[in-house]
């Protein structure tokens, strides 16, 4: 159905997706760990990163993360360490030499603008499908089946902490499609957050503090896009009043800690290697529905039945109401994988146990394969949105190896 090299959709379109709503978690796994203000009343501004969806399917339960110990942030200033071993985020190899002929009509050649000289169809672009694999993290991003371009972006990297132990980073961003140039917003945010972490972690900044600062840096990079005078009038003329915007979710695995941070409705799930242990969702959406439930103004069923349910209430961008980066730290007591994803995936595996079911059993051993399988899960479900998934295996440190950030 898809080109193995470039991910271009070569088949008829799939059925529209059966959409699942966001369900607020009943037992927030990171209770007390979130940095920043608590539950705020719904802000006046909301925006959609996708059209509103159908009716909710209530009754899906989440499970508490097994023994996630909240760890207080304790930033420590350390001298700059050895050079971080990191890989710049980059696209996977695109289609090979075979891409000279149009993928749609198979007769026309491709003009310099990327369209077929015969039938005019746009050709697969680099960002339509990208994959990246490092030693301890892998990510896959795909345009999906219903959107004409991929407005998601990711960055994965590895750094060395001052003590020489590795820190692994994954950032995933989802461009807000009702804003202008969402693809540029997500790319800028992912790059900026990743670079901020690669700078801060080797200097010994506490990962949770570093995550907070990385989100702020990402927000600034997206804000700068709004001021970009290079904004062509033809780019998105009917939407150009909206500043570029995106969501961000990130995870850091370092020294036995799992730190997450987010703004918007992209998520992190925890899936233990032992699938009999309960999985968990580690983030709480900045969405209208989540806020209504959290504020006690509506129950889940009512909130998710509302057409505003999926409107996001937090995002990165010049017209954001107020930037509230959320961060949380966890200390898992068993090995597992961390799934960092956009709603293009979790729309098809909303509850934590659904995500755990969708992830292959050998996820920790083959993170790239796991990310590919999860993207495939979303496409099989309808691929209504862009899909981006990063997978970070988490191993419990040897006894005594201890965390540099442990509570002393």
């Amino acid at each position, binding site marked *: 159905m898809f080109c193995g090299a470039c991910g271009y959709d070569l088949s008829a379109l799939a059925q529209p997706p059966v959409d699942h709503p966001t369900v607020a978690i009943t037992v927030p796994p990171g209770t007390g760990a979130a940095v920043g203000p608590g539950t705020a009343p719904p802000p006046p501004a909301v925006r959609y990163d996708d059209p509103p969806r159908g009716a909710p399917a209530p009754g899906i339960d989440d499970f508490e993360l097994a023994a996630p110990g909240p760890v207080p942030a304790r930033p420590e200033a350390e001298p700059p360490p050895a050079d971080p071993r990191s890989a710049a985020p980059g696209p996977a190899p695109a289609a090979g030499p075979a891409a000279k002929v149009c993928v749609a009509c198979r007769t026309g050649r491709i003009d310099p603008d990327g369209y077929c000289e015969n039938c005019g169809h746009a050709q697969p672009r680099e960002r339509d499908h990208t994959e990246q694999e490092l030693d301890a993290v892998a990510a896959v991003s795909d345009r999906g089946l219903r*959107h004409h371009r991929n407005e998601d972006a990711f960055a994965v990297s590895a750094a060395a902490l001052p003590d020489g132990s590795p820190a692994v980073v994954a950032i995933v961003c989802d461009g807000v499609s009702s804003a202008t140039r969402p693809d540029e917003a997500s790319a800028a945010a992912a790059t900026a957050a990743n670079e901020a972490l690669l700078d801060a972690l080797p200097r010994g900044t506490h990962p949770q503090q570093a995550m907070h600062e990385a989100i702020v840096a990402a927000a600034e990079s997206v804000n700068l896009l709004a001021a970009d005078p290079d904004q062509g009038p033809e780019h998105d003329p009917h939407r150009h009043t909206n500043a570029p915007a995106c969501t961000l979710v990130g995870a850091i695995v370092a020294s036995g800690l799992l730190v997450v941070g987010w703004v918007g409705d992209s998520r992190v799930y925890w899936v233990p290697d032992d699938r009999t242990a309960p999985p968990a969702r580690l983030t709480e959406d900045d969405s209208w529905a989540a806020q209504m439930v959290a504020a006690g103004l509506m129950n889940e069923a009512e909130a998710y039945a509302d057409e505003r349910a999926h409107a996001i209430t937090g995002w990165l961008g010049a017209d954001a109401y107020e930037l509230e980066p959320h961060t949380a730290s966890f200390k898992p007591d068993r090995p597992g994988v961390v799934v960092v994803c956009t709603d293009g995936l979790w729309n098809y595996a909303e509850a934590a146990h659904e995500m755990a079911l969708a992830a292959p059993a050998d996820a920790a051993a083959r993170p790239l394969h796991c990310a590919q399988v999860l993207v495939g899960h979303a496409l099989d479900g309808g691929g209504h949105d862009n899909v981006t998934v990063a997978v970070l295996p988490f191993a419990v440190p040897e006894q005594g190896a201890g965390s540099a950030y442990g509570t002393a």
Partner: protein
Amino acid sequence: MANFSKSRVPQFSVDVYQNEYLPEGGREVNAIVTVTSTGGGTSGAAALLAGAGASPAYIPAGQGPGPAAAVVIMVDCSGSMEYPPTKMRNAREATAAAVDTLRDGVAFAVVSGTHQAKEVYPGDGRLATASEATRAQAKEALYRLTAGGGTAISTWLRLADQLLARADVPIRHGVLLTDGRNEHESPKHLRDALEACAGRFTCDARGVGTDWDVKEVTGIASALLGTADIVADPSGLAADFTQMMRKAMGKEVADVALRLWTPVGAEIRFVKQVAPAVEDLTGRRTEAGPRAGDYPTGSWGDESRDYHVCVRVPEAGVGQEMLAARVSLVLPDPPGGTPQTLSQGLVRAVWTDDMVASTSINPQVAHYTGQAELAHVIQQGIEARKSGDFDGATAKLGRAVQLAAASGNADTAKLLSKVVDVVDATTGTVRLKAKVAEADEMTLETRSTKTVRVKK
């Protein structure tokens, strides 16, 4: 900064305004293409001329800015030009003013038009080269012009064409002045002459007084890619001719074509110039390679024009993206070379299930759709009024008042208010005036195609 070297071709830029988002099953793609040409020394020449006032400080021959050009002025000398006698005098003076505006080095000739065409200056089938001396000689020759005879415009155009063909220059331009109907030949003669001359030179046409036919004059300008206007009061001719000639002298590049490439299976609904005036180019396509065609735009100076392109593309699924049209400005076939592309823009189609995106209408497209309708309803309204259908005329001209007001087309609104009493511009409620000056109605009809650009 001044560069008097060989290259004078202005820089062309193309901007495309459209909502590229189509709903599932959507096929029609609309876009406004703004073409702007800048540079090429035109503004310098205009500044020199503007500063020169009534007695231009001539630029020394051979160093003047602007490309080589040739101009033929065609003056109506039919018998009616003597009624009133001021008309012939004003025509002479206007032609003299136009001659004064000719840049040094420009090849030119003056033709008098009746039921036949005669060379007034320089004669013998030649063109004169503009200089202080030849301009004086031409003006002297003008004073010997007398009125008498009929009107057969095709003969004027054919003589102008023969004369202009002598000049090996890129810019070939005519100026035609008439005061009466083309009544001494069949309409077919004029049509054939226009067909023969199209693409060989451009021509501005002016009607003086109120005894001429609006469709004839606008038809000449339209076929020959020039402007048409009314000069109801002959005393306004000199100023009009001076301005018209300045614009002609500002032209830097001729025979520019708007080239449209469309994908296989696509159908071009229409291609219209929509600013500064409405001009339907759909039927004037010449094929230019696979799935591409050229639409003539004539010659360009420092100016900006808008085009409305409407293409029907084959259906594609949600999430697909297609190039619906590639719009480029080309100089076809320079001697011994391939067509030169001056600039280009892309018209896209993207299918989405986001209803907000696919149902919004691009402001430029909406504006010019309204301006084209404005021109159309004015013409229909005047037609209805002439044929005695006063209800129809009231409805059409009422709609015109409404459109002109909504789009900020103040000039057209003012012209309309001389033909109808406006009760409420917002709803388009009007009453036909009992008595309308012929000049006012002809002015409205002639200028009905003039548009304004989108309010910022």
